[in-house]
């Protein structure tokens, strides 16, 4: 396999792991997918006020604090499952890349009723350090703006 193909596979795997780790609530492993300088954004466009909005923007320490405190919060009891499309990857150089991936996130209540929670796309920037690809910027763009159940857990 060419090294380009390996890089492509590595980035696709990071995207799949992102979703899987959130679904199983392995938050510290999820954070480790970010570069030390990396950050997470949840953004949406409001047609009402005709501008882009940042709903959350956190660097690694802020993500860690938030996720460490998940157990102290009262939470939506539904479990969540991502369905993630094939990332479209563009390399900017040997150690940086951009990727766009559509995703949807469903919630299933303890009684077993499922509903769509959010549909949107990941618009990511990757950086390769010490042979590993990680998020320099993991940007989640949510098409959904009327949320059925709120959560501060990343999407």
């Amino acid at each position, binding site marked *: 396999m060419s090294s380009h193909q390996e890089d492509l596979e590595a980035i696709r795997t990071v995207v799949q792991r992102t979703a899987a780790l959130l679904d199983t609530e392995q938050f510290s492993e999820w954070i480790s997918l970010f570069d030390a300088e990396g950050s997470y954004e*949840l953004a949406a466009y409001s047609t*009402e*006020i005709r501008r882009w909005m940042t709903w959350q923007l956190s660097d690694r320490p802020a993500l860690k604090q938030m996720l460490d405190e998940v157990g102290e919060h*009262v*939470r939506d009891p539904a479990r969540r499952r991502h369905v993630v499309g094939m990332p479209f990857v563009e390399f900017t150089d040997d150690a940086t890349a951009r990727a766009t991936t559509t995703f949807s996130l469903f919630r299933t209540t303890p009684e077993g009723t499922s509903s769509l929670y959010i549909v949107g796309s990941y618009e990511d920037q990757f950086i390769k350090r010490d042979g590993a690809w990680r998020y320099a910027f993991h940007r989640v763009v949510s098409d959904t703006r*009327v949320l059925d159940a*709120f959560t501060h857990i990343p999407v």
Partner: protein
Amino acid sequence: MVRLLTGHDKPQLPETHYLDNRIFTDEAIFREEQERIFTKTWQFVCHESEVDKPGDFRCARIAGKSIIMVRGADNVIRGFHNACRHRAAEIVRDESGTARMFTCFYHHWTYGLDGRLRGVSKPEGYEAVNLDKSTLGLVPVRSESFAGLVFVCLDDGVEPLREFLGDIVKGFEEPLGTIPLEVFHFHKAVLKTNWKLWQDNNSERYHALLHVANRKTMPWVLGKTSPMKLRIEAHGHSGYWADGGEAVVDYAKGGYSDGAEGALPGMRGDEMRVINLFPDLMINIRSNVVRLDRMVPLGPDRTLVEWRGLAVKGDDARMRAIRTRQHNLFWGPTGRNLPEDVLAVESQARAMGTGDIRYSIIAREEQLNPTDDANIRSYYREWGRRMGKSPATLA
């Protein structure tokens, strides 16, 4: 035989200190509220910045009506019912936009930004009946503004806005009204709850116990006294804030970066003010950022809530990022507090819907500390006055 407790026994409390939960679930009471409260009070529709330039318009629903707010060429913000005088199609079908005039999409009648009927298509067809265009403008809605907040009132008999607001404005007129602000955040959701439970949630600080973020950053809520005091004003309006002394939010205790930078006029660093206008506007101010909640009740157990975040117009990117972070930390759709508040009020609505517990208790008396229920009692006194029935006995 031992008599079991029932949820329908009246609390042994003064009538002012409890509520009959049917005011949150009953269909007929809900319809009466629309009539006696929502069409007879000043209703917040939008912030001035949402209709910033001549031609900018913004749509809103109030008491089942669709309203257009538009800034005219003369810079006056006017309200109109969103319906064409020809055959009543909607004039505007977007949430917001910019127009030079309004052309109805159905048969192309056109209206000016001032609502006047400017032209009808194929006018020769109306010559025989001498159609008088001057009587067929868009139907206006009373509109007045205060501190950048645009209100409308569906009833001509109601007092002017400033009189309706009364002295509660001292809590927000300086931070909101003395510097140009703009809406940088908007989201909405349909909560499966009664609209008053969302207002109550914002009014009572007792539930700071629900929020891990409040337990950490507002340690005084668990103590006996607080730097913040309830302010009870006329017409059911209330709020709570501190007049000085220690900071009311200790961000460092919660491990968060502080919210002092870029404080709005009249606000101290790490200050917080909560203002609840009767019936359904909430103004929450953290030193450098503002949150507004407005509601569109859809049914006894369905409520559309709109959330707005306000920041200073002309912020540089760094300052805007600070305000945005401060807003999102607690109040954003993925903030620390909002999801918990929503779970609480939806849970109440489910349990109240069973009819098993007839009464809610609003009996705390604590010298106007924010965990006192005096503001909620004042709110429901006003509700009772307008509805012509006691919220405790429904009589």
